[in-house]
C-alpha cells in the first residue's frame, strides 16, 4: 500500500519534470523575439498569422521591422534615424512602402541583393522615399502624375 503510494508519487514527479522540460516557445517571449527578428520579410508576415501572441508581437514590436529593413546592411544607420522613422509612421510602414518593393524587384538573387542593398545610398534612398510618401499622404494629394512615388515603381531601362 505504502509502496504503491510512493511509486505513484514518483511517477507524478517525473511527469511534472517532463512537462517543465518541454519546449513551449510562447512561454519564452524574449527568445521568440530573437527568432522573429532574424526572419526575412515574407516569413515575418507568415509568422503574424500563427496565433494571437505572434500576431500581437509583430504588430506592436516595431523593432522587428527595423531589423528587417536593415538586415542586409553591414553598418546599420545611426540610432538618430529611429525617431524620424517613428514620426513618419514606423519601420513596418517603411518596409512595406519603400523597402519591400525595391527588394522584390531586385529578385531572388541573394548575391545581387547583397551587392546593391548593402550600400549606404540605398538606405538614403528608402528613407527619402519614405519622407516623400509621408509628405504626400499628409497633403492628401492623390494626384499620381505629380507624385514622386513613381520612384518606387518598376522601370524598364
Amino acid at each position, binding site marked *: 500500500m505504502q509502496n504503491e503510494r510512493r511509486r505513484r508519487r514518483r511517477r507524478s514527479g517525473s511527469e511534472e*519534470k517532463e512537462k517543465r522540460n518541454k519546449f513551449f516557445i510562447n512561454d519564452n517571449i524574449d*527568445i521568440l523575439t530573437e*527568432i522573429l527578428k*532574424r526572419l526575412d*520579410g*515574407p*516569413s515575418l*508576415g*507568415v509568422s503574424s498569422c500563427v496565433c494571437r501572441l505572434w*500576431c500581437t508581437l509583430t504588430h506592436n514590436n516595431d523593432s522587428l521591422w527595423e531589423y528587417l529593413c536593415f538586415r542586409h546592411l553591414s553598418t546599420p544607420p545611426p540610432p538618430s534615424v529611429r525617431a524620424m522613422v517613428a514620426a513618419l509612421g514606423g519601420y513596418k510602414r517603411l518596409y512595406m512602402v519603400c523597402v519591400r518593393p525595391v527588394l522584390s524587384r531586385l529578385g531572388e538573387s541573394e548575391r545581387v541583393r547583397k551587392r546593391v542593398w548593402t550600400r549606404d545610398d540605398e538606405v538614403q534612398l528608402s528613407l527619402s522615399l519614405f519622407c516623400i510618401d509621408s509628405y504626400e499622404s499628409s497633403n492628401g494629394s492623390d494626384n499620381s502624375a505629380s507624385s514622386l512615388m513613381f520612384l518606387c515603381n518598376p522601370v524598364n531601362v
Partner: protein
Amino acid sequence: MAEKASPSSNSISLKTVDGKIFKVSPAIANQMLTIQPLIKDSDSSTIISLPDVAAFHLTKIIEYLEGKPAAAPSAVDAFEAQFVKDLSPEELKGLLIAVGYLKVNGLVDLMANTVAKLIENKSVEYVRKFFGVVNDFTPAEEAKCRQEHAWAFDGVDED
C-alpha cells in the same frame, strides 16, 4: 566535458534540473550572463541551481564554450556550423530555451539564427507544427490576418 574542468578550489558547481552537477571554470561560467552575479559571491562549496537547464543542454553549452576557437572568424564559422549540424530540431529548440535562460555569450545568436532558418519560407501550418503552437484565432480573425499579410504568402514552400 565537465570532468575536464580542473578541480581547483575556484571551480563553480552548476546543478541542472535533472540533478546532475557540473564543475566548470570561472572563465566558462562567466560567459553565462544570468549566473554571472552569483559567481562573485560563491566559493567552492556553493552549488548554483539551474531550474530551466537539463544536463544534455548544459553539456552542449560547455562543449561550445570550451571548443570555440579564439581567433580566425573562418574557424569560428566552421566550428559553429559543425556544432548545429549535430543537433536535431527537437534538440535545437530545447537548447535555445536553455541558452536564452542562461544568456550564453554568442550562443543565443547562433541558436536563434539556426532556428530562424528552419522556419523561413514555410507555411503557417508548418510553423505551428514545428513549435507546437495552437491556433487560437477565430476563423474570422485568421482570415483577416491572412488578408492583411497576403503579400507574404508568395513563394512559401509546400509542407
